[in-house]
């Protein structure tokens, strides 16, 4: 006997607080351009990528190291020569070369660059993806609205919005999702679920409100919905034509970016794809060359693919890490943590494109300690302003004040949108 997911759910929750099962809304998934709800893809460069070996090279200077630059499709913009393919598409996005923060530690920097707030001992702020999925719900979605691919030490969290908004963590999408398959055949699964309905009902007697507040039933329903959802196909990147898979690169990260595109296409609100390995305290140049072999094709293919499918106007792409790396090259050819003037790419989702913001000194405080330096790059951009820009563009009231569980009111973002990036 082969039950459909509808049968299973009907059997399981015929008399519970059963929620109506919306079908796959193909029209919504097919909507394009401005018609489409906004989504967010964060390419997370864990460990902190060097601005000098990515989007802000300074060849031939004291600080430039071995990295050369190449021209891009955007007149006047040059990036590190390790990124020939990104150079072909970077004009679709914007470059900020003057991000500044005070957090030079991985955990604290990650916190700031994922939430837009500095760590606070009394509460945890929600990440961008959590805010987006909280504020822009979609009941047609049967898989989680906030997904983290390839994991990282500090995945995006729901913070004070609740654990329901934590990113759903999938360590390797090509290996399938953990705990997603029922352990027994349909007959037994159905029997188990029917039993569960009976036992849950007796617990609900006299506890209707309390049990509803636990979301137990709802999470079980959503887990069941997910287990049998057609939308899981979004993870099946082998359904893609070989040419597209080749374009993203046959790497875990390439698969992750391709999955992210498929997820967004399915209606997932926010996807974070992590690329580890940027913490190059030694052999920075070689390390970044290795990293670029994965990032260059995957990021270029992602932008290209979103454009091809007319999804770029509705998908914000942010490529960022917790900080940049020191202008000074240390004794073992490495660069250390540098939060005072680093780069990111941001674009899509209806933002303007081709804007380059900020400029770092070619011979800055190379001798200075990253933590002591108070010198700033030209036209410094504070992280909260970047976050306000992204939230606003997603259609979230970025300065909305919410009451946190400890009774302290908190804005989604404390920054102001960067006008130059808004269309």
């Amino acid at each position: 006997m082969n039950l459909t997911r509808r049968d299973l759910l009907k059997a399981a929750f015929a008399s519970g607080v059963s929620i109506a099962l919306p079908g796959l809304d193909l029209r919504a998934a097919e909507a394009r351009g401005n018609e489409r709800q906004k989504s967010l893809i964060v390419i997370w460069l864990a460990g902190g990528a060097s601005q000098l070996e990515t989007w802000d090279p300074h060849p031939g200077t004291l600080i430039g190291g071995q990295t050369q630059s190449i021209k891009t499709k955007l007149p006047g913009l040059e990036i590190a020569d390790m990124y020939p393919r990104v150079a072909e598409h970077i004009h679709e996005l914007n470059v900020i070369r003057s991000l500044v923060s005070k957090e030079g530690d991985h955990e604290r920097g990650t916190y700031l660059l994922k939430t837009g707030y500095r760590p606070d001992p009394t509460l945890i702020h929600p990440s961008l993806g959590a805010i987006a999925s909280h504020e822009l719900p979609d009941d047609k979605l049967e898989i989680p609205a906030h997904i983290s691919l390839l994991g990282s030490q500090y995945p995006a969290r729901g913070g004070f919005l609740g654990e329901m908004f934590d990113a759903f963590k999938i360590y390797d999408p090509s290996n399938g999702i953990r705990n997603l398959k029922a352990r027994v055949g349909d007959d037994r699964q159905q029997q188990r679920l029917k039993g569960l309905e009976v036992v849950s009902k007796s617990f609900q007697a006299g506890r209707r409100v309390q049990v509803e507040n636990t979301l137990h039933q709802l999470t079980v329903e959503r887990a069941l919905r997910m287990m049998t959802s057609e939308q899981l196909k979004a993870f099946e990147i082998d359904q893609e034509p070989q040419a597209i898979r080749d374009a993203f690169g046959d790497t875990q990260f390439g698969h992750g970016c391709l999955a992210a595109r498929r997820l967004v296409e399915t209606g997932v609100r926010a996807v974070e794809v992590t690329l580890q390995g940027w913490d190059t305290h030694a052999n920075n140049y070689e390390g970044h060359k290795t990293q670029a072999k994965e990032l260059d094709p995957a990021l270029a293919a992602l932008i290209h693919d979103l454009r091809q499918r007319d999804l770029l106007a509705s998908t914000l792409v942010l490529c960022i890490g917790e900080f940049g790396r020191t202008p000074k090259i240390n004794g073992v050819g490495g660069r250390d943590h540098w939060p005072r003037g680093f780069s990111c790419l941001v674009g899509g989702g209806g933002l303007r494109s081709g804007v380059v913001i900020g400029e770092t000194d070619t011979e800055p405080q190379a001798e200075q300690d990253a933590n002591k330096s108070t010198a700033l790059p030209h036209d410094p951009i504070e992280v909260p302003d970047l976050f306000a820009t992204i939230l606003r563009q997603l259609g979230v009231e970025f300065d909305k004040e919410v009451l946190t569980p400890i009774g302290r009111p908190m804005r989604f973002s404390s920054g102001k949108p960067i006008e130059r990036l808004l269309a």
Partner: protein
Amino acid sequence: MRWKLLLPGVVLLAIIWLVSFVTDQPLKGVATEESARPTADLDDSVQKVNTFFARRWASEDLQPVKTAGELSVLRRIALALMGTVPSLEEIRAFEQDSGPDRLQRWTARYLHDQRYFDYFAERLARGFVGVEGGQFIVYRRDRFLNWLSGQLAANRPYPELVREMIAGDGLWTDEPEVNFVMAGYDDGEGFNKNKLAGRAVRAFLGQRIDCAQCHDHPFDHWKQNEFAGLAAHFGQLKLSPVGVREDRDLKFEVEDRHTLEKKVVEPAVPFGDQWEPTEGTRRERLAAWVTHPENRRLERAIVNRVWGLLFGRSWIEPVDDLPDPPGEQIAGPNVEGAKHPKALKAGEPDLLDLVGADFREHGYDLRRLIEVIVASKPFLLESKSEIDDAQRLDRMKEHFAIFPLARLRPEQIIGALYQASSLTTVDQNSHLISRFIKLTRSNDFVKEYGDLGENELEDRAGTIPQALLRMNGNLINETIDAKPFTASGRISQMSPNAERTLELCYLVCLTRRPTSEESDYLLPLLKKVRPNQRGQAVEDLYWTLFNSPEFAWNH
């Protein structure tokens, strides 16, 4: 050569002997009836708490729900104190115990159990030192836990523990309480005295003064310079690779946030100057101030925390941000004022003061404190009610006129799962192999289930990964497997009939018997299976019970 033929038999006998040896070992650490008597003269203290609630409920116009059945209270006690459900063995003994004050005696019995020492030490340590990782922190945390577990076993007066944690000097290994200072580690940033000071004040005095490290407290009165003065008490603490000592030459410097200039800050306390002695090291002086009998914040904080660990919800939330003790307004806005949900009515005593004073007057006896709370009316109430009005229920929950539902911690889920996979009591001494499995598997499970860290007392709802893990995860699947030595296997083989099978599964998993509606549905399923499918049927039943909200929530 004939002995070679005997070899398999000898090995088999040896295995049988070993298995029976390890399973029949007397349970060390489980107290005898003698030592585990309830503390004498609890009644007055319990009565005080009950009177407080009777008045509070009357003034809030709330009717408390009925008293819960004793078995469900036993389940709460086991979960709160030992992180597991009662075993079938314990349920049987409890039900055969016809003496008076059975719950009080069983509370005392659990409070003398090794499982309580270890589990409750871990719960308290969350508040004291947090859950931060990092290899050497894990190692030190382990030493700290062993120490704390030993203190609970010896039931030492609480202020003595606090003094040792704050002021202790010595080696990480010889004086494990000094590992408290690891609460000042910031992953990657190294040791941070401000963080340690903030943690100490939160953990022991229940005040989130650490907000004031960067800005004045959002709605309390703490000022930045008050925080700096407190933190300066840790200013001469010196860490070495082997331990902690005090270095009188060290100065405590703070960077002015505006001028970025460093200035030396001398130790100072924000209130109660007269409690701080002039003698001793800075940390000894701080410890004396924190634990001074007139510093009611100490007793109020631990009462609120223990209350939270027992109910899954502290009296005042968050657990470590308490208003000033009544009548001891320091400065700033009146936090006793009407805005606070626990605001006092005119002439009404404060619960934390009342239980705190009782705790102090009885020698700061943690075991007794738990006995008092567990025997008081709110702990004995049902978690259900005829009332269906969400707002009214919220108020009942706020004033503990109903037992609150609380999500079980992942360790409690594992503890309950393991206990439910055995018919006898699984404790620290039950055999080593299963303990090893427990350690390795449970950590993975905790990770996947999501550890709430030190914020474990916050109101949390379930998540989808948790539901998936409970339904389809390895641990559950292996636990319910009906093998010869698992509970499900034994129940399916040994029960004389389907009624008995059903009852045993319910007792083992949910600490209760099935309702008639449940029997009506589930019994026919058990009855219709062929004998060779009985194992499967019990597995399915186990799965169902494990996945019910009743299993995953304390009620």
